[in-house]
């Protein structure tokens, strides 16, 4: 497996009032293509900062971030927007769908900012909606959907641009155990289809679904382990 993303000696400092906060103090990780990584750590460990940097929502104070062999750490705002819309998929804890848009329009948003929306991409949106089990609710709006359904729309949206990496930030944080399991099954399915997934979580039983668990503490990597146990696959095939 080759590295789809590499961070090298990544540092991030914030000015918070008069205080300088060192959120990341030199982190280097290789993320392999097709891997399923969980980032863990207590609050203040720097895991959210790392995810924001990986998601190109922010730039590091120093160090490098190579996404598909392209150094994105020195790009300007517009270039980063471009990278986000083309190469990254996002899944958030609060689903973050646009309330005025229908299911199909929400899935379409990343393409909108690439300026390529047409009948073909529309058909692709419909296929993805069907894949996440919302084929009958294409014209529904987020408030008409349950939390689990909204998160499935978000998953479909994260796939529409065929991204290098899917970044999930506490994707199951707002969901009950049963629904969380459904969502994780879906993510695992995507991973088995070859998608690289990096997720932030603070729940051990969610992290167990990942193949690799990286723990952060105080801006350093505390541990980086491959899960020995094979991820639970009791709902295997649900996504196909």
């Amino acid at each position, binding site marked *: 497996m080759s590295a789809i993303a590499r961070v090298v000696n990544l540092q991030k400092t914030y000015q918070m009032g008069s205080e300088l906060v060192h959120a990341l103090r030199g982190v280097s990780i290789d993320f392999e293509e097709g891997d399923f990584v969980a980032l863990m750590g207590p609050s203040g460990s720097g895991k959210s900062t790392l995810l924001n940097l990986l998601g190109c929502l922010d730039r590091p104070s120093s160090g490098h971030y190579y996404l598909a062999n392209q150094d994105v750490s020195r790009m300007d705002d517009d270039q980063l*927007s471009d990278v986000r819309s083309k190469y990254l998929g996002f899944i958030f804890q609060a689903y973050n769908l646009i309330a005025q*848009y229908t299911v199909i329009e929400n899935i379409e948003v990343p393409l909108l*900012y690439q300026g390529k*929306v047409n009948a073909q991409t529309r058909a692709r949106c419909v296929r993805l909606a069907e894949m996440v089990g919302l084929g009958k609710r294409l014209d529904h709006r987020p408030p008409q959907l349950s939390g689990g359904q909204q998160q499935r729309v978000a998953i479909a949206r994260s796939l529409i641009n065929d991204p290098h990496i899917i970044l999930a930030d506490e994707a199951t944080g707002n969901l009950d155990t049963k629904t969380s399991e459904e969502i994780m099954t879906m993510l695992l399915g995507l991973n088995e289809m070859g998608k690289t997934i990096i997720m932030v979580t603070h729940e051990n039983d969610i992290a167990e679904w990942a193949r690799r668990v990286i723990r952060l503490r105080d801006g350093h990597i505390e541990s980086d382990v491959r899960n020995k146990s094979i991820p639970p696959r009791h709902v295997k095939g649900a996504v196909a």
Partner: protein
Amino acid sequence: MLNDSIDYLISFLLDYWPYLLGVGLFVVPAILALTPIGGPKLRRSFVTAVRNLWLHKLRSFLSVLGIIIGTASVIALMAFGEGSMQDALDDIMRQGATNIIVVSVKPADGATSNRSFVAKYGLTYQDYERFRTTIPNLVSAPLPVRSFDAVVRPVTESKVLRSRVVATTPHYATIYKLGDMIAAGRFIVEADESPVPRNICVLGSEVARTLYPGEDPINKVIRFEGKNPAFTIVGVLKDRSPSTSGPDIEKYDTDIYIPLVSSRALLGDTTFLRSSGQRGAEQVQLSQIIMTVETMEQVRPTAEIAGMQLDLFHDAAKKDWNVKVPLDKLEDAERTRDRYRRQMAMIAGISLLVGGIGIMNIMLATVTERTREIGIRRALGAKRSDVTFQFLVEALVQTTLGGLIGVGFGFLIIWLAPPIGHYFSNHLPTKVHQPSVFMAFFAAVVVGVLFGWYPSRRAARLDPIEALRHE
């Protein structure tokens, strides 16, 4: 018919091409933007804008209310101004913009040097002759008019009517454009003047109605009280619209027209005044002389020559004449209109400023409210310019709709005002001032861009991470 419409179209295009160009520049891209040419981004921004407006119907309405009121009031007020201006202009044109009117003026009491029972003043037949022979550039002979009040009595009836007698020449019909204003019979003709002055008269419509209700007045005979000669009616005029410019309204329908030569020969130049208990008499040979010159440029110099002549032959102390130039009134009217327009432009500016502040206020609130949405869009790949663009489109859609509704309201007011004014017995003429319609609309649109700009920039400058965290 076809030629007429083509001519009209061409003149319209020539008059309003800048506005049409402006409309084209705005409307054509707007329409193209909604077709596949405009691209999905613009189309989606537009649809989103409309949806958001619809989602907050009341709020959107209130935020553009300023724009609506501003646009409507500019259009309506301009139409009121234009309407009354048009009234004044029509009136001046009726009086003739190339006319010079010399009138007799009764000198102030005490100014008359002779203390006789008969007050002698005003224009004379000599003045008339001098004008006729010496004033250059006249289209035709000057028109002499002697008018005086008299009590009229039909010979066969006991009714009486106080009316104004206008003694003049056949030329009066030309100057006052009476061509198709004759209801029955004829106007004064040259044969009435020479070789022998005839004692005939032409009645104004009101006089005919009052003295001979339901009868044909032609060939009936009237007398003026205190005078012996009888006048045979040879014609009746139609209703004429009164002249409303200036402080005094001149009504023509109570006039009786007789040949000037007949008046002079049969009635004399002296009028006895019996109003308000006073007894007195005036001797005025002519009350006014109207001269028509060929072009408007000749009006003032000619008026000056006439004034110089009168100065020469009339007693400077009593100044019993005055030269009136309708063209002056035209220019007065135009000056008034220009001043009115400037004031309107100021009011328009202020109301649109207020409207713009309303838009900006709501836009800023909207940006705060939709911070999270902005964060989502940024995370999914929207550039800053995309966010600016989206909010700008929303502001534009608001102000454009507001402008359109305002134009609609403006026309509604223009349409309703005259009948409502009529109901309250006011004259409220309106005339759509087309440039103001376009200008008010475009100003509304421009306000959208100007006042939408800052909130849109502010939305675009939000940090995506902060925005995503926003509750």
